[in-house]
C-alpha cells in the first residue's frame, strides 16, 4: 500500500543531522521528484517532519533497496559505501526508535464464519460423517492471500440455505446412514495423447525399452481420472479401449487401478482395440479416489521383428485374402471368428493402444445404515438401542450444542434448541427424527457457523492497551482452527474446562501434540496450499500438445510431493529453511521417472536424496510449484520471478501498468529464445523497473520447463540459466539461486512470519503487530528455524493470546434495529 501521488518525506532528524537529507538530494531526487516520480516515489513532496511516521513503508523500501544495492540503479553513479552505510544505519535507528514508541495492540477479529474447509472438517468431527458438504457451497473469498480472513468471509441467503441443507443431510446421514442413491453412470472420455497415424512396418520402440515402466501408469497410453464416490458400495467400471497392437502380438494386458493399487486385470486379444471393452465390479469406499487404467508390459510380447523384450511366441495371425472390396468366403469365415478385433483392410503394425473412455456406474449394493461411531457421538445419554428416558433429549441436544458451539452453554440456552425436538414430536415424528430436527437447528445457529469471541468480564484487562485474554475455550478454538482447520478435540476442551490450557507448559505440549497429529495436514493444505499457491495445481491445464506427458496422475503426484514435503516439516519439526533448499524430496515412480531419478519402482511415495541431481531440492525444485508459475504453453520467468519475490523474498512487485503488450508465444523458440525476447521487452524503461527484478530470478529456473521437467534447450536454443537477485548478486541455475537465497534468509523468514500470522489470526497484520512478528522471527532463528518454534512464537504472541476489547453498544431501541436490518415488524 504505497500512495502513488504526493509521496511525503521528511526526516525528523533532518534539522539535527543534515547528512541524510543531503544524501537523498544528491542521490535520489534526480529521478524521484515531482515530475518523474519514478516508481511512484517523490522525495521532494511535502518535506514535513510530522509525516515521516506515516510514510514508513516508503522509507523501509528505500532502506531495503539501499542495503541490497538495488538503488541507486545501474547507470547512475554509486555513492561511496561509507555514505550508504551511514544513511542506512541512520534510517534503521530511526525505525527502531519509532517502534519503541508503538503501543502494542492485540487487534480484534470480528466473528469469523467457518470457511468451506473448516466447515467440512468441523462437520466430520462433530457428527463422524465425512460427507464434504461444502463441495456444493459457493467458493470463499480470500483476503491477504488466505480464505480464513474474517473480513472476507461473508454470508448470504444463498449460503445460509446451503448451510440448512447441509445440516439436514449431514445429521440425517449420521443418524440414519447415507441416503439411498439410485445407480447412475458417469462417463469419462479420454483425450488422444498418442500419434494416431498409420505406420508402415515395425514401429520404433522407446529409447528406454530396457527399463521402461512395466506398470504402464506413466506411459501416454494410460488414463487417469479422479472420481468422487458419494457413498461406499459396489461400482461398475466399464473400460473402453482404442488404438491398435501389431499383428501377432501377445494379448494386451490391461490393469484397473484405484489409488495406485492393482484391482483387476483384463486380457484382450485384438489388434484393433477400437471399442473393445471390459467391465469390473468393485467395492469402493466413499470419497475421492484416483482411478487409473494402463497397459501392463506394453512393449513386452510384441512380434519378434520389433526387437522388444519377451517377444511373442505365437504364430502370425491369419490374414484376410483381400484388404479391399468384396470379402472372400475365407475372409467371411475368418471375420466370423475375429469379429471387430482386427482391421479388415490391412496388416496392423501400430502400437497406439490407449483408452477411449471409462464409465463408472453405481452405487450397487450400497452400504447403508449409520456408523455406530456417529450414533455414539450423538446419543450422549448412552442409549444407542433406543430405550431413552425422559432426560435424554435434553442431554443429547445440550451435549451436541456444546460441542458444536465449542463452549459451555449458558443456562437455558439448550431450551431453545430443545423446542425443535418438542415441535417435531408433536407433529408425530419419531424420537430420532425429532432429535435430528433439534440438531439441525443447532447447525444453522450463528454460534455454530461463526467463531464468536465474546468479551467475558475479565479482571486482567490492560487499561492502556484495552487487551484482554481470550477465554480458555476461545483459545482452544484458536488453536484447533489454526493448526487443524477444525473444532477442538476432547482433550483441548477438557483442558479448557479445567482452565489449564493457558499454562505455558500445557500450551506448548498441546501445540506439539497437535503438530504431530495427522490432522495437522490441514495446515499443509490450507496454509501451505495458499501461501505457496500449490492448490492451483488442481486447476492448471498445461497444453497437452506441448506437454503430452501431463495427465491427472502426474498432477496428483506433483501435488502429493509438495504436501508430503511440507507435512514432513510440520510433523517431524523440520527446519523452515528446507522450503528454500533441501537435499531431499518425496517421489513415487511416476515422479521419479519424470525427474529422471533411477531405481524408484511402484506408486508409493518415499523420501529420496536430491543432492546429486541438477534440480536439487526445496520447493523451487518441485514440479507443482514450477507448473503453477508457468503458462499452459511455456515457462514464464516473469511469473516465476514474481512468485519468488512474493513468497520467498517477501518483496511483492506492484501490478503491471495497463496496456502492456503480451509476448508472442508462437515466436518463442523459433525466431528467438524466450530469454532474448524478454530482454527486448525489458529495454522499455516502463517495464524495466520491475522486470529487472522479476525476470532474472525466473531465468535462473529456465532449465525447468513449464511442467517442471529438466531441459537443456528452449526450442532450438540452449538454455541460459544465468540470473541475478534484486541486489545484483549473480548466479547460474537453480542450485546457486537457492544458495544465495539461504544467505538472505531474513527476508524469507519475515515473509513467512507475516503470512502465518495472517492465517492464524484471520486478519491482515498491522503496524502494531510488528513487535510481535519481530519476536517470532527472533525465536525462530534462535531455535534452528524449527517449525514448532514458528508456531509456538505465533501462539504465544500478543495478538494470538489476547484481543482488543470492544465496548458493546448499548442496545438500540428495537424499532431502530428493525429498520436497520429491514425487518418486517411483528
Amino acid at each position, binding site marked *: 500500500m504505497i500512495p502513488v501521488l504526493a509521496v511525503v518525506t521528511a526526516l525528523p532528524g533532518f534539522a539535527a543531522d543534515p547528512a541524510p537529507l543531503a544524501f537523498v538530494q544528491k542521490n535520489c531526487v534526480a529521478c524521484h521528484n515531482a515530475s518523474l516520480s519514478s516508481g511512484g516515489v517523490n522525495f521532494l513532496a511535502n518535506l514535513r517532519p510530522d509525516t515521516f511516521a506515516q510514510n514508513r513503508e516508503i522509507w523501509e523500501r528505500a532502506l531495503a533497496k539501499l542495503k541490497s544495492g538495488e538503488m541507486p540503479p545501474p547507470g547512475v553513479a554509486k555513492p561511496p559505501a561509507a555514505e550508504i552505510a551511514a544513511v542506512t544505519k541512520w534510517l534503521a535507528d530511526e525505525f527502531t526508535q519509532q517502534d519503541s514508541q508503538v503501543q502494542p495492540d492485540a487487534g*480484534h477479529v*470480528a*466473528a469469523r464464519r467457518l470457511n468451506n474447509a473448516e466447515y467440512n472438517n468441523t462437520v466430520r468431527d462433530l457428527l463422524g460423517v465425512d460427507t464434504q458438504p461444502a463441495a456444493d457451497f*459457493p467458493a470463499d473469498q480470500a483476503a491477504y492471500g488466505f480464505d480464513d480472513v*474474517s473480513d472476507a468471509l*461473508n454470508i*448470504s*441467503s*444463498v*449460503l*445460509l*440455505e446451503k448451510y*440448512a441443507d447441509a445440516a*439436514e443431510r449431514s445429521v440425517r446421514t449420521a443418524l440414519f446412514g447415507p441416503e439411498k*442413491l*439410485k*445407480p*447412475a*453412470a458417469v*462417463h*469419462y*472420455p479420454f483425450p*488422444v495423447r498418442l500419434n*494416431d497415424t498409420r505406420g508402415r512396418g515395425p514401429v520404433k520402440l522407446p529409447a528406454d525399452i530396457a527399463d521402461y515402466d512395466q506398470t504402464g501408469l506413466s506411459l501416454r497410453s494410460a488414463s487417469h481420472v479422479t472420481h468422487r464416490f458419494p457413498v461406499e458400495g459396489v461400482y461398475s467400471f466399464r473400460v*473402453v479401449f482404442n488404438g491398435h497392437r501389431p499383428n501377432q502380438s501377445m494379448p494386451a494386458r490391461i490393469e484397473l487401478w484405484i489409488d495406485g493399487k492393482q484391482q483387476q486385470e483384463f486380457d484382450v486379444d485384438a489388434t484393433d482395440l*477400437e*471399442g*473393445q*471393452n471390459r467391465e469390473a465390479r468393485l467395492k469402493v469406499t466413499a470419497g475421492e479416489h484416483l482411478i487409473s487404467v494402463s497397459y501392463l508390459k506394453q512393449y513386452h510380447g510384441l512380434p519378434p521383428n520389433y526387437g522388444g523384450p519377451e517377444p511373442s511366441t505365437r504364430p502370425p495371425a491369419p490374414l484376410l485374402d483381400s484388404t479391399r*472390396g*468384396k*470379402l472372400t468366403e475365407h475372409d*467371411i469365415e475368418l*471375420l466370423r471368428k475375429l*469379429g*471387430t478385433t482386427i*482391421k479388415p*483392410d490391412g496388416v496392423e503394425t501400430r502400437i497406439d493402444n490407449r483408452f477411449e*473412455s471409462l464409465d463408472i456406474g453405481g452405487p450397487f449394493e450400497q452400504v447403508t445404515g449409520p456408523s455406530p461411531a456417529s450414533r455414539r457421538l450423538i446419543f450422549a445419554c448412552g442409549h444407542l438401542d433406543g430405550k431413552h428416558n425422559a432426560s435424554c433429549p435434553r442431554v443429547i441436544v445440550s451435549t451436541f450444542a456444546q460441542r458444536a458451539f465449542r463452549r459451555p452453554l449458558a443456562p437455558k440456552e439448550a431450551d*431453545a434448541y430443545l423446542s*425443535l425436538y418438542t*415441535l*417435531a414430536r408433536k*407433529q408425530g415424528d419419531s424420537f430420532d427424527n425429532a432429535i435430528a*430436527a433439534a440438531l439441525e*437447528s443447532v447447525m444453522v*445457529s*450463528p454460534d455454530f457457523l461463526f467463531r*464468536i469471541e465474546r*468479551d467475558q468480564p475479565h479482571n486482567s484487562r490492560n487499561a492502556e492497551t484495552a487487551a484482554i485474554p481470550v477465554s480458555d475455550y476461545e483459545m482452544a478454538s484458536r488453536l484447533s482452527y489454526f493448526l487443524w482447520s477444525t473444532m477442538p478435540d476432547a482433550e483441548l476442551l477438557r483442558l479448557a474446562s479445567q482452565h489449564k490450557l493457558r499454562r505455558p507448559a500445557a500450551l506448548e505440549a498441546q501445540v506439539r501434540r497437535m503438530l504431530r497429529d495427522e490432522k495437522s495436514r490441514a495446515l499443509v493444505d490450507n496454509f501451505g496450499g495458499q501461501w505457496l499457491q500449490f492448490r492451483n495445481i488442481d486447476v492448471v491445464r498445461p497444453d*497437452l500438445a506441448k506437454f503430452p506427458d501431463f495427465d491427472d496422475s502426474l498432477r496428483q503426484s506433483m501435488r502429493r510431493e509438495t504436501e508430503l514435503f511440507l507435512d514432513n516439516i510440520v510433523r517431524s519439526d523440520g527446519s523452515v529453511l528446507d522450503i528454500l533448499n533441501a537435499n531431499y524430496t518425496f517421489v513415487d515412480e511416476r515422479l521419479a521417472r519424470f525427474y529422471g531419478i533411477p531405481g524408484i519402482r511402484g506408486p508409493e511415495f518415499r523420501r529420496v536424496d536430491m543432492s546429486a541431481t541438477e534440480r536439487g531440492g526445496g520447493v523451487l525444485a518441485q514440479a507443482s510449484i514450477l507448473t503453477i508459475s508457468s503458462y499452459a504453453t511455456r515457462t514464464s520467468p516473469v511469473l516465476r520471478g514474481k512468485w519468488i519475490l512474493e513468497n520467498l523474498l517477501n518483496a511483492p512487485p506492484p501490478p503491471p501498468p495497463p496496456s502492456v503488450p503480451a509476448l508472442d508465444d508462437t515466436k518463442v523458440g523459433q525466431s528467438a529464445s524466450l530469454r532474448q525476447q524478454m530482454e527486448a521487452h525489458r529495454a522499455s524503461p516502463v517495464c524495466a523497473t520491475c522486470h529487472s527484478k522479476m525476470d532474472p530470478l525466473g531465468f535462473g529456473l529456465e532449465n525447468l520447463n513449464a511442467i517442471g521437467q529438466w531441459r537443456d534447450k528452449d526450442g532450438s536454443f540452449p538454455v541460459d540459466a544465468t540470473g541475478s537477485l534484486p541486489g545484483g548478486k549473480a548466479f547460474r541455475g537453480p542450485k546457486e539461486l537457492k544458495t544465495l537465497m539461504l544467505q538472505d534468509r531474513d527476508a524469507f523468514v519475515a515473509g513467512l512470519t507475516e503470512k502465518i500470522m495472517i492465517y492464524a489470526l484471520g486478519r491482515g497484520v498491522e503496524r502494531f503487530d510488528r513487535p510481535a512478528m519481530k519476536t517470532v522471527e527472533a525465536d525462530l532463528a534462535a531455535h534452528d528455524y524449527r517449525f514448532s518454534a514458528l508456531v509456538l512464537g505465533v501462539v504465544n504472541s500478543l495478538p494470538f493470546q489476547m484481543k482488543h*476489547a*470492544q*465496548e*458493546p*453498544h448499548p*442496545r438500540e431501541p428495537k424499532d431502530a434495529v428493525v429498520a436497520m*436490518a*429491514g*425487518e418486517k415488524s411483528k
Partner: protein
Amino acid sequence: MRIVTGKHLSRRTLLRGAGAAVALPFLDAMQPALAAPVKSVRRIAVVYLPNGIIMDQWTPASAGKDFAFTRILKPLEPFRDDITIVSGLENKAAERAQGGGHAKASGSFLSGAPPKYTAGADVHAGTTFDQLAAKKWAAETRVPSLQLGCEDSRMVGNCDTGSSCAYTNSLSWKDPDTPLAVDVNPRSVFERLFGSADPSLTPQERARRAMYRRSMLDLSRDNTRRLEAELGPADRRKMDEYLTSVRELEQRMDAMEKDAARIPPVEKPAGIPFVFSDYVKLMFDLQAIAFQNDLTRVSTMMIGREGSVRTYPEIEVPDPHHPLTHHRGHPDFIEKVTKINCLHAQLFAHFVAKLKATPDGDGSLLDHSAILYGGALSDGNAHSNVNLPLLIAGQTGSNRIGGVHVKLAKATPAANLFLSMLAGAGLSVETFADSTGTLDLRG
C-alpha cells in the same frame, strides 16, 4: 472457437453471479413458461443417428401411400399417419469438404456448410437451421433450444483423421464459429429446465420440512438478537449480515410455497441411467416435457456421435458400433448394425408415442411438432452422403402430411427439407445453404 454449453443459464449460476439481489430469477421466469400455452405453437426437433444405416433395411420398396414398413422402421408402423419418409436427399457440403468422413458428415449436416479441415480451435462450419428457429423464438421460451446427446464426447483435439472433435460432438451451430455442446446428463438438462427444485418429496413432507426450517430460522433470529447485545460493533455487523440472510431466505421460502403447484411433473434424474434404453427414453421424456410446457420449441439430440463405439450387449451386439459399420459386406456385421438401427427406431417410437399421447391445443403435441429422424451418412461402410436416411414424424405445418414415402429425384439437397421445415413453422426464409426450393411432402 467458443463452445456454448448453456450452463450460463442455470439457476445456480444466476444466483452466484448476480448475488442475493436476484434471488428468484428461476421462479419469475417460470411463471409464463409453465402456464399452458394459449395457442398452439410449432416445435422443431432433430434426432440424429450416427455411423450410417443399413439402407436396404430402412428404405421402403415402394413410394407413395401404400409403402410397407421395413424391418428397421417397423417400430414406427403404429404411427403410420404421422410418419413421412423422405428418400433421395443428399448432403453436398460433406462431399465437397476435406477431412474425416464422419466429421464431414455431422459437421455439415444441419447447416449445409462444409466444415473447415482443422484439428485446432479454428473450427468453422455454418449456422444450423434449427438455430434459425431458436433465434426467432428465443424471447418466447425459457430456453431457446436444447442440445442433447446420449454419448459424452472428448471435445479436444482430433476425433476423425485430423478433423476437430467439434464436428463429431456437436450437431447444432449457433453461428459458423460456435458449435453448441451437447448436454449428456439428464440431471443437468432437468436443472436447466426446472432449476434445482426437488420433486421427490411428498407435498406433506415438503411442507413439514419447510415448517421446521422456518422454526429454526426464527430461533436463530431470536438468539442472534440476544447475542448482539453482548457484542461490539464489528461482531454486530457480521450478525446483521446473518440476520439479513435469514430474512431473505424466508422470503424465498414464501415465494417457493406460492409456487408449489409448479413443481416439475417428473422426478429429478439422479444422473445418467445405467441402461442405455432408459437413458435415451429419459432424454426423450425431458424433451417432451419441455415442449409440453413450452419451455423450449427447438431441440436436437444425438443418440450417438459420429464414430460412436458404443456396444449393445442387450441386443446381442457386444461389438463396437463403428467398426461394425465398416463391414465390407460381411453378413454378420450387417446383421448386427441392422439390430442397432432397429433398437434406435424402437426408442424413437417411444418419443413419438409420448408426443402423440400428449394433448396440445386442438390436437396432440405431435401434431404441432416436426421431428426429423435420421443421419448424415447412408452407407456407413463407404461414408456415403447421398440418399440419406431421413424421415419426419409429426407435422411440418398446417398442411397435413404423413403416411407416405416421398421418393425425390436423386441429388435433391437436404437443405430443401430444412427449408420446408422452417417454412412450415412460419419462418420466412428464402433459401438455406444450397437449397433449391421447398419440398412437397404430401406425396
